[in-house]
């Protein structure tokens, strides 16, 4: 961060002061900067503005100082958002591709219906994290969190990966309904999860060596963003929660 960046200082770097700004003009300023070729946009004094980077496309990096409101990066396709602060609910909602890194905690429904890209949360998230994430072909959404999660993590999950790195066993709040209605994708939790916390249709299994190898790059990425020691995380034990069936409701109905 250097203070000499003004709007015109460097062509591909833009700085916006969001003090007292409504979200629509803020997003308009962001879109205008992207249209003019900005590669990095630093936004100061964000205080609850919703929908930042909503539907934003392109190869641009947003550095957000403050606390964005709900739906950060909703429908976003491509950009990166680095948040120096906490987030309100549903960052990464129905996100298509790109990256969100949150240096703090986030509210409920983080990565709701996310379709691709990655969301990294340094600390904890609220209820229904990763609900109904889904994958298709090369698009596989990934949610990584460093702290606790509340009930219904990965509910209705249809694809993708949730990796919960919270330190076991004392700190993470393991709550009921993990993977309830899950019919695709995987939830990997550091330490162990009591069976009583599993939702309907979710089943627990140990990780194979290959599966562990698969999460190592994500652990390293997490450690890099948040300056954590990857070795402690890499060496610990993990458990995964997968669907017991890809058709959880197939046996519920009979034809008239």
């Amino acid at each position, binding site marked *: 961060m250097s203070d000499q960046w003004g709007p015109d200082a460097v062509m591909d770097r833009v700085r916006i002061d969001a003090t007292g700004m409504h979200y629509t003009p803020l997003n308009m300023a962001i879109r205008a900067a992207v249209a003019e070729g900005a590669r990095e946009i630093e936004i100061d004094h964000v205080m609850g503005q919703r929908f930042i980077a909503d539907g934003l496309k392109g190869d641009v990096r947003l550095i957000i100082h403050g606390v964005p409101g709900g739906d950060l990066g909703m429908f976003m396709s491509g950009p990166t958002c680095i948040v120096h602060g906490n987030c309100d609910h549903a960052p990464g909602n129905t996100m298509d591709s790109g990256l969100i890194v949150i240096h703090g905690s986030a509210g409920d429904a983080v990565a709701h219906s996310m*379709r691709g890209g990655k969301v990294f949360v340094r600390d904890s998230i609220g209820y229904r994290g990763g609900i*109904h994430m889904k994958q298709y072909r090369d698009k596989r959404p990934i949610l990584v969190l460093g702290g606790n999660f509340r009930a219904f993590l990965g509910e209705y999950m249809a694809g993708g990966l949730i990796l919960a790195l919270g330190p076991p066993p004392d700190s993470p709040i393991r709550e009921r309904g993990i993977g309830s209605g899950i*019919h695709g994708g995987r939830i990997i939790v550091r330490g162990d999860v009591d069976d009583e916390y599993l939702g309907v249709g979710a089943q627990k299994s140990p990780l194979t060596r290959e599966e562990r190898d698969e999460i190592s790059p994500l652990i390293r990425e997490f450690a890099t963003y948040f300056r954590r020691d990857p070795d402690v995380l890499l060496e610990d034990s993990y458990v995964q929660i997968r669907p017991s069936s890809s058709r959880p409701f197939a046996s519920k*109905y009979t034809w008239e």
Partner: protein
Amino acid sequence: MTIGSVPVKFRISVDHDQCMLCGRCVENCPYDVFRLENGKIHVNSRKCVACHRCIAMCPRDAINIRERPVDYRSHPVWTTETREAIYNQARTGKIILAGMGNAKPYPIIFDSLVLDACQVTNPSIDPLREPMELRTYLGKKPSRLETRQRDGDVEVLTSLSPNLQLETPIMIGHMSYGAISLNAQASIARAVSDAGTFMGTGEGGLHQSLYPYQDHMIVQVASGRFGVDINYLERGAAIEIKIGQGAKPGIGGHLPGEKVCEDVSCTRMIPVGSDAISPAPHHDIYSIEDLKQLVRSLKEATEWKKPVFVKIAAVHNSAAIAAGIARSAADAVVIDGFRGGTGAAPRVFRDHVGIPVEAAIASVDAKLRSQGIRNEVSLIASGGIRESADVAKVIALGADAVYIGTAALVAMGCRVCGTCYRGLCPWGIATQRPDLVARLDPEIASRNVGNLIHAWTLELSELMGAAGINSIESLRGNRDRLRGYLLDESIMKVLDVRPVGA
């Protein structure tokens, strides 16, 4: 053997004197009712669903179908349907799935409302001679206009919200690719483009081959968020958030894995063969405030260029809910009555949950007017609109426009057999089986749907002309042009109409 087999629903008979053994019934029936053996057509009536494909294809009118050829002992309480549902559930222990709309014989309010016509004092208008204004704009209307006059020109200073311009108040509702075939969607898309109206995509994404019609398509965002990305949102002429559906209010939807073929998987953006599960609620909407957030997120994503509609099922409290929606920045509210169709719904929901669209539209319109916010949203009525008279009546009860669904499918050949959930629709509509889909020729089917819209539009303008009304806006909410015929007083109070003769 405790229960044994229940009687056949339909009995097929073949007139062997007429039959010329052409085998078209065999070829056309995807339910394997017919077989040609030893120089004779044999039938298995138990497999018949009364889709009438064989009847339509038989060149000699040699086939006959009789419904319920075996009588149960008659009983007004323990009907055939009640008894058979119990046998089914006693065997399976499961929820009964059914197709199409509400199948209970509830009285239809539309059929107890009559329209007005001019006699002597107020001459009727001849639509052949006089212009009839059926053009309808859907979206927010400003409560007042700020203007400035400059050099004789009037400049509007108020910023206007985007509206959809319809040449007729008849649109075709959301039936997804997956629920219906691509040929069926393409037929509807061509028809609405030609007629200057709109159709809904349903929650199944937008197939690439329909991009040429995108200016006439309302893209849907439902709780499963299938097929939703920024490209999809930007292509639609408007965006519709589906909260609920008249055929199954309060519950989500499941597109069974067998219907998720390569192409369906592509537009929904889910793997082939996986169940597409739409949860009951949107998990980012647990309140009116959250709904406002979703409406605004969609507007923000599309830079406030597109109207956003919110569709709810008609339920007891629709009026208060719609008043909340009208304050959420939404541009239109769709009210889907309990007669709305569906590919598959639990029978108990289809038949018992929700209220008729006539009552819901009237009460929503009244509530919005009483709060002075009727201009904030347009009202779209759907669910059980069967003919142009229903369109006229529901507009007189307060709607701006209608969505039709089943009627458009019937225009493409659907016989309302209600077996959509089997995925074997012999008319190529509610199926993804390539040989069956190929039976529906979009060239012809789009003309049929277009003809239906055209015919209803003509009838609507005739009805309006007869009532001395030359603009759809003068019909909207004009309850004075309706009378209730043998409706009880409480219903007439809800509808705000007077009885015949009054």
